[in-house]
């Protein structure tokens, strides 16, 4: 059995900033080489720093931190000693339990002592962690192990219960030992805290407290298990991961994230806006009848329902004070509810919370996936990290074997060809091809944008003409469906064109290929959306007359876009996957099936979510529509995947791409929607005939008037209005806050 090595941190260095983790062993390990070179200077440093407390194993004493010992055993850390220590197998994980437990003890001790900031001169500033702060020990006695264990137990007790739980979970010892450690903890805890508990029976208060604690604990466990059972689709996700691996799974996990965001948005709006308005319906009855076309167009019967902005009242609901009358009669159970204020505040606050959630998840994902370091290590990473353990189906496993073999061969080929650099001619040729491809894609984007603009104008004219002519409502509204269809068709067809372009380009690195595809598709989608937003706000849907409700029209338009997006996604799944597989199998007799295009599908999800965020101000029930759409999409995509697709053959860095997707969700998508929303709230005049903000100049004014009223009623809270005026209205502060959050 190899000799275990204990790393003991002397107590004089309490609060030292170096995080003693198992990976630091590597850092120490690698520093040996440099130490061998800088021997003389190191010796001096070692000598002056060791009187900090050392343990003398030969004496068999337990750790006594305060007593300094003469450095008898190891007078000089000569290169030979360092070499021996470096080559000890126990420097790796094959050390005995005692060493592992000591290591964990030191870590918990560190955690406890981390309360105070260390004095600056003690912090090691050198990039190379040296032996200075460590004291190497050769632990020979088995007796030590028991003492270390009891010390570890004592240390664990001083931690809070969550920290203790974390420590226990992350310990690399077997579960049986963890359980026994925990049992010891439980035993010690009772004896340390209440020494006479076993003797005296618990008083009634103590019993009550005990019962309450047990009750809370079981409630908490119940809540956790409920949360886990609410994790939908556990089995489906396992099936998908088992057959297709982490890459395709990342699409479905992203869908789940979007669902969570939409559920949050929907619930907030439901509680504060929709439900309260539903309790106090307006006097006017809904004049239209329900026909089936409403589900597609969102107009007709739906126009005067809770779905749209126009339905919501612009006064305080359940107001005990009648307007114009100075007297107020607050009756029993009367709770006035200022609808306009609630409307704008709910949307504002929920967007703010979503921003925080997005930035938080983005930063967490970024932290996990971003790695500083050289790009070398491709082979090692491919050998040790490429095998996806989630894949459990035989055929997919075989495919994975093949993929890894191909990737290794490609890596070998790349490495061998690196010695032959590309000639200037070829490089120039490549630049030309790249430039042409980009010019072509940007040109098509421009073309599409111009086409959409003119088409939108044309449709508006047609709609106005048909209104003037007096044709039926249904016909008019059917005309309005054409623009969403055209835009969705464009979004369906253009990505295939970009794929063809990429095939012509023949990029060498598949990662770059994916990035370029994402860039092109994203530019197209975002520019078209930007144009449409401009079109809606500037023309206000052709409602120049005073008796029309332009916000409801914009809301209806966005509803149509969301529905059409869903319809065309379905079409894309059927054509792109089902039909293509049938063609490949029956006509071309090829065994290959189509692959699931992850990037394109995720961008479609992001596009749909942007539409929802853009439309939430005008159509508060739009998140509900999006929730329904996402749930249906999950099952449809899963079925199509299982029936028609094969596992991906190209390498896909799942965690890196997940970070990219959530960044794309945050930056162009959410930010764009937030800017659109802010502009609408701050600068656009709401329509005079409908909605909660009929009488105001801008939507924001309702908030301002409320603040002014507050000021008038109670002059003590001027500080609140001052904050409101100087901070919220000052956009610079908002940018600063978002910068800090990032």
């Amino acid at each position, binding site marked *: 059995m190899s000799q275990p090595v204990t790393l003991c941190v002397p107590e004089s260095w309490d609060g030292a900033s170096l995080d003693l983790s*198992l*990976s630091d*062993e*590597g850092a120490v*390990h*690698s520093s*040996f*080489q440099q130490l061998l070179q800088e021997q003389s200077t190191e010796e001096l440093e070692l000598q002056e720093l060791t009187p900090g407390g050392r343990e003398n194993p030969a004496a068999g004493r337990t750790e006594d931190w305060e007593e300094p010992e003469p450095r008898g055993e190891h007078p000089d850390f000569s290169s030979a000693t360092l070499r021996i220590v470096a080559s000890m*197998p126990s*420097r*790796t*994980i*094959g050390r005995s339990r005692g060493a592992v437990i000591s290591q964990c003890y030191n870590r918990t001790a560190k955690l406890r002592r981390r309360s105070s900031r260390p004095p600056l001169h003690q912090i090691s500033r050198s990039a190379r962690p040296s032996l200075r702060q460590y004291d190497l020990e050769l632990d020979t006695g088995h007796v030590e192990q028991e003492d270390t264990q009891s010390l570890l137990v004592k240390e664990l007790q001083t931690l809070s219960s969550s920290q*203790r739980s974390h420590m*226990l*979970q*992350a310990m*690399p010892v*077997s*579960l*049986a030992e963890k*359980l026994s450690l*925990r*049992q010891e903890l439980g035993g010690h805890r009772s004896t340390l805290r209440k020494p006479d508990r076993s003797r005296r029976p618990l008083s009634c208060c103590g019993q009550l407290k005990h019962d309450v604690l047990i009750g809370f604990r079981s409630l908490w*466990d119940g809540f*956790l298990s409920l949360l*886990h059972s609410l994790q939908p689709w556990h089995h489906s*996700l396992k099936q998908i991961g088992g057959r297709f691996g*982490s890459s395709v799974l990342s699409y479905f996990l992203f869908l789940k994230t979007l669902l969570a965001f939409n559920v949050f948005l929907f619930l907030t709006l439901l509680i504060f806006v929709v439900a309260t308005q539903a309790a106090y319906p307006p006097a006017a009855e809904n004049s239209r009848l329900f026909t089936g076309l409403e589900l597609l167009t969102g107009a007709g019967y739906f126009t005067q329902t809770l779905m749209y902005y126009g339905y919501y009242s612009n006064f305080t609901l359940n107001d005990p004070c009648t307007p114009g009358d100075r007297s107020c009669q607050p009756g029993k159970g009367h709770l006035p509810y200022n609808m306009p204020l609630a409307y704008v505040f709910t949307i504002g606050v929920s967007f703010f919370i979503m921003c925080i959630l997005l930035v938080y998840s983005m930063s967490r994902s970024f932290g996990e*996936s*971003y*790695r500083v370091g050289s790009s070398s*290590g*491709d*082979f*090692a*990473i491919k*050998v*040790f*990290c*490429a*095998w*996806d*353990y*989630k*894949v*459990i189906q*035989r055929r997919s*496993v*075989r495919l994975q074997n*093949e993929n*890894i*073999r191909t990737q*290794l061969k490609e890596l*070998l080929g790349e*490495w061998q060809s690196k010695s032959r650099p590309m000639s200037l001619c070829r490089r120039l040729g490549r630049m030309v091809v790249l430039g042409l491809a980009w010019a072509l894609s940007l040109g098509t984007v421009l073309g599409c944008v111009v086409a959409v603009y003119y088409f939108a104008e044309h449709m508006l004219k047609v709609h106005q003409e048909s209104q003037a002519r007096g044709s039926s409502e249904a016909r008019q509204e059917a005309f309005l469906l054409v623009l969403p269809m055209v835009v969705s068709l464009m979004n369906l067809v253009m990505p295939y064109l970009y794929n063809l372009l990429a095939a012509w380009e023949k990029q060498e690195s598949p990662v770059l290929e994916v990035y370029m595809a994402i860039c092109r598709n994203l530019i197209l989608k975002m520019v078209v959306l930007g144009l449409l937003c401009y079109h809606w706000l500037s023309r206000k849907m052709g409602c120049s007359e005073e008796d029309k409700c332009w916000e409801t029209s914009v809301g209806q338009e966005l509803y149509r876009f969301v529905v059409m997006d869903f319809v065309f996604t379905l079409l894309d799944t059927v054509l792109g996957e089902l039909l293509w597989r049938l063609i490949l199998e029956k006509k071309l007799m090829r065994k290959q099936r189509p692959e699931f295009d992850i990037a394109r599908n995720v961008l479609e999800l992001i596009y749909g979510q942007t539409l929802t965020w853009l439309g939430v101000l005008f159509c508060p029930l739009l998140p509900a529509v999006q929730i329904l759409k996402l749930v249906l999409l999950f099952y449809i995509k899963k079925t199509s995947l299982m029936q028609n697709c094969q596992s991906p053959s190209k390498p896909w*860095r*799942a*965690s*890196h791409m997940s970070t990219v997707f959530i960044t794309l969700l945050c930056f162009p998508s959410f930010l764009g929607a937030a800017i659109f929303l802010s502009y609408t709230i701050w600068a656009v005049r709401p329509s005079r005939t409908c909605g909660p903000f009929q009488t105001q100049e801008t939507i924001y004014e309702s908030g301002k008037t409320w603040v002014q009223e507050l000021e008038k009623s109670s002059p003590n809270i001027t500080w609140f209005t001052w904050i409101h005026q100087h901070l919220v209205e000052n956009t610079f502060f908002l940018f600063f806050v978002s910068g800090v959050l990032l």
Partner: protein
Amino acid sequence: MGNKQTIFTDEQLDAYQDCTFFTRKEILRLHGRYHEMAPNIVPMDYTKDPDVKLPIQLIINMPELKENPFKERIVEAFSEDGDGNLSFNDFVDMFSVLSEMAPRELKAIYAFKIYDFNTDNFICKSDLEKTLNKLTREELTAEEITLVCEKVIEEADMDGDGKLAFADFENMISKAPDFLSTFHIRI
């Protein structure tokens, strides 16, 4: 939450919850999976901590492990006697480390144990060759295998002894953000 289970005491379930990354419900589900592998050997009542171990042949037939080329090594890395016989605690430990919530350092330790075929606490050239053969189902030529092994050792070995110690392995893992998502089995 309604029916009271008699497989474990409440204290046992609390202890499992504190020491692994699973909740009580998942522990009970794991016990169900463990039991169904050998219903005659595994008792339903674990309140007295029975000393029952399942042999490796049963464990590697689980659907989650059956097609994995490293299935024997995975089970051996978590078995206390080193032969692959897993008690229920080892079984839970294995899936806990391979679950989503286990931290990178913990996973790296066990990954190192798995790829260390001759259990000498170093990943030497022969270990690498065996790993490659398992990864590619022996479809690489001998020359390619040698080249890849050399490249791996060249990239990851820091102290120049021609084999990978745990520190080298962990340093290399820290450069691979995908490790957390690929070294994961859903149960």
